[in-house]
């Protein structure tokens, strides 16, 4: 990485950062036009890719160890390899720009400030998987980004990087921007596909509807996050071996951490995966907690990740014993600590925060965003909101806290898509780790007022 890049005053990358994807974000001398991108070495990797065997590109991405940056952390090259080898149907590629996991704010800056990086990454990826039609599914709340991307696509078309005979080869490709309409579930890849087909975004059941086999219009479809597609360009630029040296084994490359909540300087930081610990994120990158405050809890990978309590200790299988501040920001250690690196959205909470209030806020989000297709999620997410409403309002009885947990446990694993887990993990982890505090927000005297429905029905001769 060049050290001569001038950044806007106050927006300089932190010394601990390693910028690949965000290299041009907040640069003083950079604009989103194709000319600026080309001046800075843009579309060179596309030309290289067009001269490569398709399988060689896929192998490079596999060897790089790139894991999806949208939330699940699934290896991108492996995902590409799931297209059936005997396939004769058209292949589609969709860029998932539905960034809407609470706590996550990275794709916005890529699309606003360096859209051609995404476009180049997408064209290379489309070429590799033989897609000739691709879409950028962008959330409706990014209207400006949609306009910027449409302009970038038009510029790429005018330069011959899109349309007929991409880069003078026999390969044809079209990419269009498709705007969502404000639904979180459209970030789930099969929900996204339904939405792109013009329907309600009810996720499809897997198997059989793995998008790589039966995706958009029942054809093989690759759905990748914005950041993941940008990484493809850098893998070709650096070579998979050099790329894989960034980060740590099985957690390669860089990733953008988005930090919000109770820290002095929240923001986005691109770091090598696993090279900074949670403590370094808070104290180095973000300038520490607010004066006089103590750390209480951290949601480490978007709101669906299980919460970590400040005093937790983790004993890992490899013998390491970690406190919460020692956890390296990678996929595998985060999973070993019972949570997930997810989308990179880190939410810090200090001792001024009520955990009942926090989980109530999240439960309201999930109740609003459940698509309603599966009963456990549709009903359960609403009940979790209602019960936590009561706890916050001080009208809950102590047993309501366990009732909240029971509802969450009845959603997990019982739904078509992972939203069921996404909405139950926060409640499960908050109740498990902050049970005493939540019970402290309830009123024991209300316990005696609980009415057993069977008694009521029996009194009315209904059972």
């Amino acid at each position, binding site marked *: 990485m060049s050290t001569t890049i001038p950044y806007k005053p106050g927006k300089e990358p932190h010394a601990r950062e390693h910028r690949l994807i965000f290299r041009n974000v907040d640069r003083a001398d950079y604009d989103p036009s194709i000319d600026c991108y080309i001046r800075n070495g843009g579309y060179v990797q596309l030309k290289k890719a067009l001269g490569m065997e398709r399988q060689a590109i896929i192998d490079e991405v596999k060897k790089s160890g790139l894991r999806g940056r949208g939330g699940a952390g699934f290896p991108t090259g492996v995902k590409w390899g799931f297209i059936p080898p005997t396939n004769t149907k058209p292949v589609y590629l969709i860029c998932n720009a539905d*960034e809407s996991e609470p706590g996550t704010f990275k794709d916005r800056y890529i699309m606003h400030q360096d859209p051609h990086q995404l476009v180049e990454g997408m064209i290379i990826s489309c070429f590799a998987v033989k897609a000739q039609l691709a879409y950028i599914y962008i959330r409706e709340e990014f209207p400006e980004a949609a306009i910027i991307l449409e302009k970038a696509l038009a510029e790429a078309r005018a330069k011959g990087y899109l349309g007929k005979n991409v880069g003078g080869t026999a390969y044809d490709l079209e990419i269009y921007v498709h705007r969502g*309409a404000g639904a979180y579930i459209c970030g789930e890849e099969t929900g996204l596909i339904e939405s792109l*087909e*013009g329907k309600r975004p009810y996720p499809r059941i897997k198997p059989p509807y793995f998008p790589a086999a039966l995706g*958009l219009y029942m054809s093989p479809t690759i759905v990748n996050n914005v950041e993941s597609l940008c990484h493809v360009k850098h893998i070709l630029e650096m070579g998979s071996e050099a790329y894989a040296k960034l980060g740590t084994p099985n957690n390669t490359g860089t990733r953008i951490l988005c930090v919000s909540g109770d820290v002095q300087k929240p923001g986005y930081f691109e770091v090598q995966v696993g090279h900074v610990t949670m403590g370094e994120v808070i104290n180095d990158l973000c300038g520490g907690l607010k004066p006089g405050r103590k750390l209480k809890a951290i949601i480490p990978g978007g709101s669906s990740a299980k919460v970590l309590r400040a005093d937790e200790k983790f004993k890992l299988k490899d013998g390491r014993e970690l406190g919460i501040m020692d956890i390296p920001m990678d996929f595998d250690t985060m999973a070993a600590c019972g949570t997930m690196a997810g989308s990179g959205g880190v939410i810090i909470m200090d001792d001024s925060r009520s955990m009942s209030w926090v989980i109530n806020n999240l439960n309201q989000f999930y109740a609003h965003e459940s698509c309603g297709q599966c009963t456990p999620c549709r009903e359960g997410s609403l009940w979790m909101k209602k019960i936590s409403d009561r706890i916050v309002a001080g009208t809950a009885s102590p047993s309501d806290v366990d009732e909240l947990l029971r509802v969450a446990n009845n959603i997990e694993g019982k739904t078509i898509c992972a939203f069921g887990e996404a909405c139950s993990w926060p409640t499960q982890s908050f109740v498990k780790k902050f049970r005493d505090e939540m019970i402290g927000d309830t009123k024991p005297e209300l316990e005696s007022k609980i009415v057993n429905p069977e008694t009521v029905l029996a009194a009315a001769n209904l059972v």
Partner: protein
Amino acid sequence: MQIPTELETKMDEVITHYPVSKRSAVLPLLHLIQHHFRFISDEAVNWVAAKLGLEPIQVLEVVTFYPGFRQTAPGKFHIRVCRTLSCAMAGGYELMESLCKAGNIDRSHVDHHHPIAISTDGKYSIEFAECLASCGFGPVCMVEDDFHESVKPESAAELLQKYL
């Protein structure tokens, strides 16, 4: 309801983005309609259905599902305030309150199915939105398509002054 020629021309171009299935154009067409008419009427639903060769219910079910589509007219300037955790911690609810006060909007009647409240003079309408993806710089809100970060609740009146 009269669809202007240039709007329909734009729609016809958008439909070409979906060579496999015209049905895919439902969301983009509804966006164009909402952008032009400010909301999506029953008549517009029927028009889109006819345009794409669909049953009206196939369009209506989309309109009623997505929070981004409205079936009634909002105010002249529509405001969306982020409600979700990071913004709420930074003062999102306080921002909502002060915007309502500054814009003379009464939110007491809103519910899940009727999330939008309109000011008495019809100039502003407001609703909570779920995570607007700028969590590090809360509280955030959108006025029409403009995005505003780190909006202090006390500067709500100042913000609305830009939209008259």
